[in-house]
């Protein structure tokens, strides 16, 4: 680890001010950033810890929308339960230590191509709330580790419209236990959304053909015969692109069957 300064702002405004320094970086739960620092793969001059920002914490529900503060831990989301599929997803991220520190804002800001929350946000049609604006999930996830966030912009909350039915199926990469392929399916009055994580070099994305089929008939059988192209899917020592393409279909069916 290289030496760095740390600031602990108490409000979003203070945090934003502290992050205006070009070499400053936000620190959420540190579950991604701290290991990166330990390996000397990043060298921010200053870390701005968001853990003391009270207004970024907590979960509230109004008008069928669940609003989760950007600094809310995976554990707190897991315990909430008002959006079952989302709480189940949070409960299966990493291990107890990761869940007690890691935050939804950190996860969505990082946009790891194998992370779980991006699938939930995109699959639910969530809105990412920052200190500056609100961004629809469809516009937010740009690519692997790439998002619509500007330099110094922080995620203060994520708003999830609670669907009629939803489920997340994660086929774990056996070492990291991130998603080798994860599929989030949500059924709403407006139709069905299917978001896929872990599979693509483009990062989290929607499987529109499946959405169309499921919007007509929300059953696993509706997906029979539907396949995903292996082009541009991730291939690594844990699975080929073809295997991932196959798993996308299997996990989608399982998510539909398990949706509640």
């Amino acid at each position, binding site marked *: 680890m290289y*030496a760095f300064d740390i600031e602990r702002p108490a409000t979003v405004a203070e945090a934003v001010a502290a992050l205006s320094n070009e070499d400053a970086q936000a620190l959420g739960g540190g579950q991604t950033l701290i290991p990166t620092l330990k*390996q000397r793969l990043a060298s921010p001059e200053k870390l701005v810890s968001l853990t003391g920002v009270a207004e970024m914490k907590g979960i509230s529900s109004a008008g069928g929308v669940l609003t989760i503060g950007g600094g809310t831990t995976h554990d707190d989301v897991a315990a909430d339960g008002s959006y079952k599929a989302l709480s189940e997803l949070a409960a299966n991220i990493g291990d107890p230590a990761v869940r007690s520190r890691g935050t939804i804002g950190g996860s969505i800001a990082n946009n790891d191509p194998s992370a779980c929350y991006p699938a939930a946000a995109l699959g639910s049609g969530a809105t990412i709330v920052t200190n500056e604006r609100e961004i629809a999930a469809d516009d937010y996830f740009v690519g692997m580790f790439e998002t619509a966030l500007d330099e110094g912009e922080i995620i203060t909350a994520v708003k999830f419209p609670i669907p009629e039915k939803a489920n997340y199926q994660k086929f774990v990469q*056996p*070492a*990291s236990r991130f998603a080798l392929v994860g599929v989030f399916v949500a059924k709403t009055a407006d139709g069905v959304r299917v978001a896929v994580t872990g599979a693509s070099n483009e990062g989290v994305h929607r499987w529109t053909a499946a959405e169309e089929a499921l919007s007509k008939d929300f059953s696993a059988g509706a997906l029979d015969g539907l396949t995903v192209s292996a082009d541009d899917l991730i291939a690594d*020592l844990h699975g080929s692109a073809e*295997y991932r393409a*196959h798993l996308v279909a*299997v996990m989608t069916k399982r998510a539909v069957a398990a949706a509640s």
Partner: protein
Amino acid sequence: MPKDGGIGASTVRREDVRFLTGTGQYCDDMNMFGQTSAVFARSTVANGVIKSIDTSAAEAMPGVLAVFTGEDFVEVGGNPAGWLINSRDGEPMKEPKRPVLAHGKVRHVGDAYAAVIAETIEQAKDAVEAIEADIEELPALVNMKDALAADHYVHDEIGTNQCFDWGWIEDNRAATDAAIKGAHHVTTLELVNNRLVPNAMEPRCSMAQYNRANDEYVLHTTSQNPHLTRLLISAFVLGIPENKLTVIAPDVGGGFGSKIYHYGEEALVLAAAKKIGRPVKWTADRTEAFLTDAHGRDHVTKIELAMDKDGNFLAFRTETMANVGAYLSNFSTATPTFLHGTLMAGNYTVPNVYVNVKAVFTNTAPVDAYRGAGRPEATFSLERVIDKAAREIGMDPIELRRKNFIKPDQYPFASAAGLEYDSGNYDALMDQMEKVADVAGFEARRKASEKKGKLRGFGVNAYIEACGIAPSNLVGVLGSRVGLYDAATVRVNATGNLSVMVGAHSHGQGHETAFPQVVAEMLGIDPQSIDIVHGDTSKIPFGMGTYGSRSLAVCGSAVVRATEKIINKAKKIAAHMLEASDGDIELKDGVFSVAGTDKSVTFGEVALKAYIPHEFPLEDIEPGLEETAFYDPANFTYPSGAYCCEVEVDPETGKVTVESMTAVDDFGNVINPMIVTGQVHGGLGQGIGQALLENTTYDENGQLLSASYMDYVMPRADDLPFYTVDHSQGNACTHNPLGVKGCGEAGAIGSPPTVVNAVIDALQSGGKSVTHIDMPMTPHRVWSAMQNA
């Protein structure tokens, strides 16, 4: 049995109190006044020529005390291979020098070519980044087949990438070939025994101190055998006389083989401590552990099994390529040869065995003994090909094995691979396994799995291994450069408590509990009054350390011999005290008495007398009560077992779950059943890890893709089933005083083929014609095999 547990008691491990309460003292816990930090500059390419190394900027960095490169060590010796192997044509193996720091060339990713000593570890890391090394990358030799065919070499000076081409037993070759040629049925299988990273919980750490006043060194290091480390440093590498070098291996957090060996980092910190006159510590981070700890396994094998029309085994013939990596690690040449080829007759009366092993240099981390060391490779090849053969001839795999088992009345049995098995009863093990695993109920369980959409498979395996290594005379003939005896000193202190100095090193094996049980049983005293001292060359007489499941069989035997000497002397002292002749003295429950009388003295009274020798027959008996014994075993010991497991395969994803695992082992006599069970549990976890999870992968450039826990799959609790472990069927070893065989590696030897056999069974039950899948059987591999079948 003495109170609180002698032989046979499941005494709770006393060392766990400190391990579980954070009060263990590991190398990195120890800090010395004035201590400095060493950090290594390591190659990022697998193969490259070192054109130049400019350390001037690094030397000028804050806190930097010294910078070393390979140039500084050209005068010192190489780290040797402990076993000289001759090729089939009689040529000795190729043994290129393994330097302290790479010189001229770097040969694998992680190969250290420079080291910085600085006041703090961060300063040392900063300075390492400032070293300017001009290393010209060369094409990497990764795959063994390619390396054998290549016209460029890992070590240019030897002009080949083949270390040796070994035949065992060369004289049996023609007969084996003939048996295969004339056989009714020959089953052939090509398989890979996958490379594993040992992943001890504690990474390696070495700290050196140098005392100018008397030219003495102390090395604290993570070692399974501090005397062997001292011997290698003294006799081969730095030439520091043994009387000037103390090696201490304190609490060590697991080794599994990887901490047997002497590594360059140990020599570096010693040289650095002398140069700067201050203690120098190096602690590996996890990445260094992945890149530089000696890896395990990595064989590619073709095996053939010839049978007559009734399924009687006629011959096994194997051709193996064994990866030794970039340098020969200390046991690397013994592991694929004498620890592997000699086991290739298995538990069977097969008359012909021939084994050919080509050891190959590649631009990868060195490969050496890892839990099981050669015997898992032997068992895997045998038990996989036997399973395949059973399917080919339509015979039940248990029946085929039983048909060819050595029978209990055939011991001692001279195996066709050159060993003499002393005792065993493989049918009894199989009977017990069938019983405790409820093999008869399998079909019902298979139906239940099928109802859930899963394929269920049953796999079985019988193994024999050779441990308690080893008779020095025998291994000397076979090329070993060391003897493999062990030593113990039993020191009875004046007030009757005991310190037992043992050459075996305990780093998870429970010696601190089990060895006192043996001494307590012999003396009839409380085991809590006995402590084990190990891991310090200045305190213990000598020792070859802990590996090859040898601690109890070899060092435990030395403890027995030394304790017998104690008893003999104590009887003389008691006889004097009781005014009797020593032939009439009996020892029972810690009391010496004169046979047929009520005259007695306690063990404690005798001890006190030995140290306060008033009215003592000094002309006949020396004062004191301390005895040393060296024990050299007469033979290997031969644990054996029958294992089975049941797996479920998810046909949609290829994911395998192990539903049950049964291990029935013959370990001979058992000193502490709970410790033995724990050792089997650990071995099973590692074996299942090898079979399903652990996927060491180098890409074609020699980059280790699985160099962290993000990609290397260590088995976790939820990957493993609850085990059924049974060691009720022991047949005592006939040639050591305790009748013990060794249990540390069995689980890792017996489980991999069991799991693979079960997966193949599951897939075939689902109508797939899959006959083999290489380990680790990841979901992707299983799914792919199903697509192609």
